[in-house]
C-alpha cells in the first residue's frame, strides 16, 4: 500500500546543497519596509470529517429522518444564509468564532468537494488528497511539487511541518521540509559544556556536510541532519514569539501559535502544514453534547482558528495569510446503529484569510433517499461530489501562490465559479 512512500527518495544532489536564506536582520528589515509575503496554511482534518454536522442543511427533512439521534436541531445551528440552490445552511453551534469570520466575509465554504468514485479508505483517500492524483496516489505531494517549483536559492524553512513526521502532501523531489512539532524542543543538546560542546557541535555540522550522494537512503538522513542545523537558529527566534491572544492549549492551538510566530518573525516560510485528528466518528458521535466527541472536535477547530485569525489580524498579517482545510472523505449520510457515521464521499473544504472572498460556494446535497438523486451516490448513501477538490487546489495555486496550477497539478482543473480568491 505504501511501497512508494517508504522507498521514495529525494532526488539529486540539489537536495543536499546548503541553501542559506537571508539572515534574520534582513528579513526584519524587509518587513519593516512593508514587504509582504504570502503564507499558505494547510490544515488536515484527520479521519474523515462529517461535514453534514459542521455545515447543516437544517431545513432538509431527510437530514433529520436519516440522522434520528445525531442531527443538530434546526433551532441550534448558527444560520449563515442559503446557497445558490436555496438550501438554508447553518454552522455547528460550537463554531461561533467561525461564524463571526464568515460574517466578516473572510471564510469560504466550498460544498461537495471530492472526486469521482471516491475512496472510502483512510489511507488511500489521504494519499489521493495529498498527491491530487486519484489514479496514482503514490507520487509526490501537491505541496511538495509546489515547493519544488520555487526558484532557487530555496530557503531551508520554505515549508514548515508542525507535525512530527513527514506527511505525504509535503513530499517533494528536491525540497526538504523541516518538521518542527515543538519550537522549544527544536534545539541541539550536548553531553558536554562550554568549548567542548561547541567543538562537538561544529563536528556534527561538518560531518553532515559529507553527503554520500551515491547512497540515496543514507544521503536522505544526511539531508535531515543538515536541514536541522540550517534551521535551528531561526526556529529559536520563533520560540520567543509573544502572541497578541491566548491560544488554546490543544495540539492545533499550539501548532497555529507557532505558525503565527513563524510569520511574525518573517522566517520566509511559504507553506505551513498543521493537522488535527479524531474525525473518524464511527460511534457515539455526540454532535450536540457538550464534551461529546464531535462537539469537542468543533470546539478544538473553532477555538484554534478563532485565536489564529484574531492574532494575525492584530499583527497585521491577516492579509498575507490563507488557510485551507481538507479531509480524506465525508461520512455516510444515514447514521449507523452506533450513533455514529461510517466512511462516505464528498465533504466541505474551508478557506479562510484576510483576502478571501467569503461565502458559500457550490450547492448542498439534497438528502432524500431516491437512488436517482443526482447530488448523492452509492444508492443515495453518500454525498456525490460537485467540485473536484483539485479545482480548489488550482485556485489556491494560481490565485494565491502565484504559480501555475496546470503544471503543479498535472492538468487544468480551474473552475471559474470558485472565486474565493
Amino acid at each position, binding site marked *: 500500500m505504501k511501497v512508494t512512500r517508504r522507498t521514495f527518495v529525494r532526488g539529486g544532489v540539489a537536495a543536499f546543497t546548503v541553501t542559506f536564506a537571508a539572515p534574520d536582520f534582513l528579513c526584519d528589515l524587509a518587513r519593516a519596509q512593508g514587504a509582504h509575503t504570502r503564507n499558505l496554511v494547510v490544515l488536515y482534518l484527520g479521519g474523515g470529517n462529517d461535514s453534514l454536522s459542521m455545515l447543516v442543511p437544517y431545513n432538509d427533512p431527510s437530514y433529520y429522518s436519516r440522522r434520528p439521534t445525531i442531527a443538530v436541531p434546526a433551532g441550534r445551528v448558527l444560520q449563515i444564509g442559503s446557497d445558490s440552490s436555496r438550501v438554508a445552511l447553518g454552522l455547528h453551534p460550537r463554531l461561533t468564532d467561525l461564524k463571526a469570520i464568515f460574517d466578516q466575509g473572510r471564510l469560504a465554504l466550498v460544498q461537495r468537494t471530492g472526486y469521482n468514485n471516491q475512496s472510502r479508505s483512510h*489511507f488511500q483517500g489521504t494519499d489521493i488528497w495529498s498527491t491530487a492524483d486519484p489514479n496514482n496516489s503514490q507520487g509526490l505531494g501537491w505541496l511538495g511539487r509546489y515547493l519544488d517549483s520555487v526558484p532557487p536559492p530555496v530557503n531551508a524553512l520554505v515549508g514548515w511541518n508542525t507535525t*512530527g513526521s513527514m506527511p505525504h502532501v509535503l513530499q517533494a523531489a528536491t525540497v526538504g521540509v523541516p518538521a518542527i512539532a515543538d519550537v522549544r524542543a527544536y534545539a541541539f543538546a550536548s553531553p558536554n559544556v562550554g568549548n567542548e560542546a561547541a567543538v562537538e557541535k561544529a563536528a556534527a555540522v561538518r560531518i553532515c556536510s559529507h553527503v554520500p550522494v551515491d547512497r540515496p*537512503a543514507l544521503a536522505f538522513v544526511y539531508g*535531515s*541532519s543538515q536541514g536541522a542545523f540550517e534551521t*535551528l537558529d531561526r526556529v529559536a527566534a520563533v520560540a520567543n514569539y509573544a502572541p497578541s491572544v491566548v491560544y488554546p492549549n490543544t495540539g492545533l492551538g499550539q501548532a497555529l501559535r507557532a505558525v503565527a510566530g513563524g510569520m511574525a518573525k518573517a522566517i520566509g516560510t511559504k507553506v505551513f502544514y498543521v493537522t488535527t*485528528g479524531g474525525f473518524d466518528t464511527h460511534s457515539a458521535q455526540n454532535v450536540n453534547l457538550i464534551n461529546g466527541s464531535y462537539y469537542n472536535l468543533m470546539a478544538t477547530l473553532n477555538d484554534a482558528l478563532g485565536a489564529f485569525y484574531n492574532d494575525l489580524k492584530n499583527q497585521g498579517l491577516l492579509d498575507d495569510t490563507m488557510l485551507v482545510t481538507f479531509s480524506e472523505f465525508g461520512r455516510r449520510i444515514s447514521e449507523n446503529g452506533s450513533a*455514529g457515521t461510517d466512511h462516505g464521499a464528498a465533504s466541505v473544504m474551508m478557506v479562510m484569510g484576510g483576502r478571501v472572498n467569503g461565502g458559500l460556494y457550490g450547492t448542498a446535497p439534497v438528502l432524500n433517499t431516491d437512488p436517482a438523486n443526482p447530488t448523492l451516490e452509492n444508492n443515495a448513501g453518500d454525498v456525490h461530489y460537485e467540485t473536484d477538490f483539485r479545482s480548489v487546489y488550482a485556485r489556491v495555486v494560481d490565485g494565491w501562490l502565484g504559480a501555475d496550477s496546470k503544471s503543479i497539478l498535472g492538468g487544468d482543473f480551474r473552475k471559474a465559479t470558485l472565486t474565493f480568491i
Partner: protein
Amino acid sequence: MARSADLQIEHLLRRAGFGARPDELENYRAMSLVQAVDTLVNYTLVPDTVDGHIGKPGYVGITSNGPFSPQSNIADARQRWLFRMVHSDRPLQEKMTLFWHNHFATGYNKIAGALGAPEATRYMAAKASEDPGHVRGQIEMLRDNALANFRDILLNIATDTAMLVWLDGRDNKKAKPQENFAREIMELFTMGVGHYTEPDVYAGARVFSGWNLQGAGAVNATARHQEFYYNPDQHETTAKTFSFPIYGDGSRTIPARAASQGMQDGIDLINALAGSRNTARYLAAKLYRFFVSELGDPDPAFVNHIATVYLQSRYDMKTVMREVLLSTQFLDSRAYFARYSWPVEFVVRALKDVGWTGFSLNSAVAAMGNMGQILFEPPDVAGWDAGQTWFSTGAMLARMNFAATLAANQRFNLAKSVKGYAQTPEALLSHLLGALATPTLDNAVVAELANYVRATGAWTGSDAQLQAKSAGLVHLIAGSPEYQFV
C-alpha cells in the same frame, strides 16, 4: 571466528531483535547461523524471567510516579516493554510483538477516552497473572501469539477488548451494522486495498454484528472487566455474499444462519481471509520491509516464496519466520543496514551498545515521542509510517539529543570502559566505533571524528579528558546518519 560471520550474526540480532548486549553477542557468536535462527524462533525453550529483573541493580532503570504499575499506568507499561526489549533473552518474541503491534495498530488514547486511563492500560498491557480478573491485555495476547498461527491471531484480535473499543466493534448492532472493523480487517490486517469492494465492507459489517462486549466478574469488584461476547440478539442473520471465495469450494456466500449459530459467520470470514493468497502476499511484502530491506520494492521472488510457505504451513508464523531469516535475501550483505531504524529500535540498540546502568527508561519514553513513536499510541490503525518518514529534521534532532542524553548519563561508565583502549585519539575512536557497531564510515567522516577528539588540546588520556571525549564521540556516532540504519 571470521569477522564476516560476526557481521551476519550482528545483522540477525539487529533485525530479529534490537541489537545485541555484549553477553548476547557472545552467546550467539558461538552458534552457527542455523543454530542461531533456531534459537531465536524456538524461544519458548528459553525461560521467560525478564520481568523479575525490573528494578534490580545491573539492569536499566525505570522511574514510576508511585508504585510501578504497568497493568494500570500506561507510562509504566511503556517502560516495562522497553525493559523487555533491552533485557529479554527472547529477542524475536519482542520483535514480533512489535511487528504485530504495528500491524494491528491500536491506540491507547481512544480506549482511555472511552473507559478511563487505568482500564485502558489494563486492556492494552496487563498480564493475566497480575490482573484480579485475569484480563490479558492486547500486547500480552500478541506476545503469547508472537509466532502463532495467523488465523488464530486474527480470531484473537477480533475478540480482543481493546480492539473492540478501538474499531467500535462493541457497538456493532444488527439494525445498522458498523463498518469500521470490517473495513480494516480486509484493508490493513489481511488482503490489502484493491482486493475487496465496498459491498464486501458492508457485508463484513453484517458478519461481525453482535461481536460486542459485556461486563464479567462480580460487580464493583476489582476483577470486574469488559470481555468479548457474541450477542445473538444483535446479529444480522441473512446471507452475506462477498466478491472473493469464502469456502474451499469457491462459494462466496456465507449462508443465512439462526442467530444462535451466527458467530460462525465471523469465523468463516476470518478463515477465508487467513487463507487468501492476497493475505499471504500482503504479509510477505510487509515482512520483507520490516525484516529484510526498505531499499527498493520487496523482491518478488521473496514474496512468492514466503507467501507459498505461509499457505503451505497453514499460516504458521514460526515456520514463516524461520524461512524469512534463512532466506537468501535476508542473508545478502546488501541487506545489512538496509532499513531505517524505528525510534524504538534506535533507542534500545543504543542502550545495548553504550550501556544502561543508571539510565532510566522514563527519559527514553519522552524522547521517543519527539522521534515520532510512542508505544501503544500508533498514529492510526495503519500503524507508523516507517522508512524515511521517521527522518524529519525535528525527529533527527530528537535522535541526536537522545544520544547526547545517554552519553552524558554514561560518561563515567564510558571513561572506565575505554581505559586501556585510549592511548591515542585514534585508538579511542576505533574502540568506540567497534562498540557501537556502525557500518563502515567514509574516511571524511572518520577524519571529522578524529579532529573532534584532538580539537581541545593535547592528548593526555586523563580521566576528565576520557569522560569528555568518549561521551562526545558516543554522541556524534550514535547521532550520525549511519547509526540510524539497522
